[in-house]
């Protein structure tokens, strides 16, 4: 007698042509389907019966799914109304729900006292997560004076419900006359601040005085720990010594800070040195960004270090987060950047200008649609990513999305699916039916 098998209301099947994925929303599990398992699930989702001629392997797959509460057998075909957690409604042009602003980035200066070879050459380079660093798009871009003062700007940002103000540049320490009022205003509005800087341009004592009032932390951009490598990266000899002195002072005063390792041209050794120096306890506060010459990518350069540092598949931490990921890019969502040129963009790694703050200010700039379009998932992922069945467990940097040609190698190096290989196996695959693989994820690069 034929029976039918359908996936559960809260189990989503994403077909990626050559393989598929099952997202167990409440269970937080992600299963990869290949070969016979994929073909079988496809047939079942088309309401084709599981007849008496079903193979033992097929029955084992379906039993496995049933026992994991990912599907059910029934005597009749069924329509399965997949679970949603909110009304699928969008009020016509009225933006009923306020945008969930998370982070505002403000590049308060173009000025920098370093001479990093790959900085300010966005057209000739490819970068990954440069938004976490002091990298500039265009070192020759003129800086425009904004029409409102620092305090008013901070007040506007705070009124949006932003949870973090990220100050970057160039080197914000060189714009002290702007930085101090911004920090003081942010304190008044109880808006946390992170200042991204290489730490140069100001004495250690001056930096500590700024931080002492609380509410602000440094994100120190480092180029490595080998003096020669650092000098090659940033063009100055004494930078590393200054940074180490600053770190020591912060550590002595128990002031928390972040570090972002900016790797130029893929220098794997410096990444390892930084990870060793800071140790496992720094896992959440040590990040990395990379910037490469486009030509080097075209010439086939690959970052072996990046291959190890790639973002892993990240399981969703809540049901809400799962549904969020269906529609929004976790990287861009909720963020905007006020450039040193007065332009509104999504982040430092993306070039599209959404508005000019000189014309009507921040509120006016945020009333357009461009920024919010870049918050959505699809516009900010590459064609390859959109076709991948694992895309909802992945958080690619959208700065790579538009560069599928030049950045293909770099993007591939950052692709968790690539890391799984062509014949992925779970640690205990003898227990898995053929073609059904529960993907084991890790939280991130070992630190």
């Amino acid at each position, binding site marked *: 007698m034929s029976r039918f098998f359908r996936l559960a209301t809260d189990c989503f099947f994403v077909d990626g042509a050559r393989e598929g994925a099952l997202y167990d929303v409440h269970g937080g599990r992600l299963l990869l389907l290949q070969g016979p398992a994929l073909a079988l699930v496809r047939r079942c989702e088309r309401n084709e019966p599981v007849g008496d001629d079903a193979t033992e392997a097929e029955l084992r797959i379906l039993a496995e799914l049933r026992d994991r509460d990912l599907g059910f057998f029934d005597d009749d075909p*069924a329509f399965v109304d997949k679970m949603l957690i909110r009304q699928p409604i969008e009020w016509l042009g009225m*933006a009923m729900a306020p945008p969930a602003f998370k982070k505002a980035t403000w590049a308060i200066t173009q000025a920098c006292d370093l001479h990093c070879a790959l900085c300010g050459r966005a057209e000739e380079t490819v970068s990954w997560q440069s938004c976490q660093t002091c990298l500039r798009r265009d070192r020759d871009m003129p800086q425009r004076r904004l029409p409102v003062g620092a305090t008013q700007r901070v007040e506007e940002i705070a009124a949006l419900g932003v949870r973090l103000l990220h100050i970057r540049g160039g080197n914000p320490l060189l714009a002290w006359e702007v930085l101090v009022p911004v920090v003081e205003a942010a304190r008044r509005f109880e808006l946390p601040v992170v200042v991204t800087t290489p730490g140069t341009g100001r004495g250690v004592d001056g930096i500590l005085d700024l931080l002492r009032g609380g509410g602000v932390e440094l994100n120190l951009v480092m180029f490595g720990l080998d003096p020669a490598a650092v000098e090659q990266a940033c063009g100055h000899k004494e930078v590393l010594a200054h940074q180490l002195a600053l770190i020591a002072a912060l550590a002595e005063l128990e002031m928390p800070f972040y570090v972002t390792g900016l790797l130029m041209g893929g220098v794997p050794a410096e990444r390892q040195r930084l990870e060793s120096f800071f140790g496992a306890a720094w896992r959440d506060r040590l990040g990395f960004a990379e910037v490469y010459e486009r030509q080097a990518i075209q010439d086939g350069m690959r970052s072996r270090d990046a291959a190890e540092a790639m973002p892993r598949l990240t399981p969703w931490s809540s049901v809400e987060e799962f549904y969020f990921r269906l529609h929004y890019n976790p990287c861009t969502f909720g963020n905007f950047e006020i450039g040193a040129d007065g332009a509104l963009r999504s982040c430092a790694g993306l070039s599209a200008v959404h508005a000019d703050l000189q014309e009507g200010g921040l509120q006016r700039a945020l009333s357009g649609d461009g920024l919010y379009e870049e918050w959505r998932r699809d516009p900010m992922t590459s064609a390859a990513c959109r076709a991948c069945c694992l895309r909802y467990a992945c958080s690619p940097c959208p700065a790579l999305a538009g560069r599928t040609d030049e950045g293909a190698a770099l993007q591939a190096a950052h692709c968790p699916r690539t890391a799984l290989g062509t014949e992925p196996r779970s640690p205990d695959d003898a227990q898995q039916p053929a073609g059904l693989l529960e993907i084991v994820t890790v939280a991130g690069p070992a630190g």
Partner: protein
Amino acid sequence: MTPVSHETAPSRASSGSTRVTVTVRSASGRDYLYDDITGSIFPWNKLREQALAAEASGTTDHVYRQLEGKYPVADIEAAHRFIRKWRDLYGAFLRVQGNDMPASPPAEELEREIRKKSFQILLILTEDCNLRCKYCALSEVYPYNRARTKRRMSAETARRAIDYYVALVEPQRAGNPRKRFGLSLYGGEPTMNMPVVRSVLDYCRGRYPGLFQPVMTTNGTALTPRTVEALVEHDVSLAISIDGPAHEHDRLRLDAHGRGSWERIARNLRRIKREHPAYWANRLMSLSVYDWATDVEAVEAFFAEHPELLPRSIFVNPVKAENTSWYDRYTAADRQRIAGAMQRLRSRYMTAKIKGEATSSYMDAIAGTRIAMVQLRRRIADSRHPYLPFSGSCLPGDKIAVRVDGTIDMCERVDGRHPIGHLDHGGIDYHRVREVVEEYRTRVLSGCAGCPVTRHCGLCFAFFEGASGYEQRSGLCEATVADVASRLADYISILEQNPRADFRFETDTMRLEESLLFGC
């Protein structure tokens, strides 16, 4: 994995819980269960039903022993796990009674809530009209309603209303730069007060550029070239009352001399299309009304056959049945006739959706809306107004309708006997809102916790206005539950045959998301 946070705490089956589900059967004969706790629809069968019944009665061990001879053990265990999973995550299927109506909020809290959520202001620009439609809300047909007068809103009152409203919603604007608010230009017939229409539109553009989305509801007879130019200039969406072809429309929509209005409307539509084709295509909409004498199938054919003339239909509503003797003129045969016609339209709509064929906008509005609304039902994470649990109603203040003299009502559909404020007295009176809400909660909502279709409920204050305030209407809730069950069955029946069926349609207030989960 933590479930979605929601208002009702999950609980095990216990006395004091009410099952809040609806079981429906699709056209193919398959059963489904709608759960009002989560808003989910589950494929259903006898085994699951017995598992849920056992859970609800606390007799799971006994029941499962009985089932062992009838079903494979693995299936019984799977059904048990299914029920337990949804019960543990969300307290699905059963709603705990007794603690669902929080205390009435103080006025200050209501004010905060309204200022956070209000989304539309309506200006009743005039109580006058150049027509005498037989079912008019301002006529003797509705004795509780306000009556037609010659009063018109002044430009000053209109500006004051706008200023008041902008101040009211200021907390939203700071945190939502994209937020726009509805500005509805209403009447009577608003084109009879065009000087004030122009004045308020100019005022909004000058003082609050881009803040409002204006829409005008009109009988379409007085859309002179100059009037239309003003509406085009300010990008006003235009909802025109068109009940059908001339003989149908002119049956009920007449002027003071008893003359039909259809020809005037048709002339205006042709001219607008000729002179402002983009505006005609993008901003004009039809509103239609029908009663038991309407040949709705002929009207649908008329709309289907004349898309070149008729703007897309967005709302098709029956003549309002509450507080009127309108339908006393009709017989049971009339009722049967209209029911048959509606059934045939419904059937054609469903067939078209199953086959992926196009449907007219009138068909979508009269037959499709009720089905498509299933897709738009509220889900587990959609919050309700805490003061109006389980109700589909707005909170008074979510919309405000300002009358010609500055009196503020909660919307244009209410009969006007329960105003909530006045421009001259500080605007919304939040103590009055509290009184209105409390009366509504006490008299109308007390039984809602046991309702299995609260996430579909569209009943609001306007439905429950009675001779002495708000009152429950006998049979209305039961009819609503039955209607929702029917809609659920229709919805599921379509999707069983065509999982890709396109329910997308537009109204002046909502559009389905472009891509739903994995449906594209």
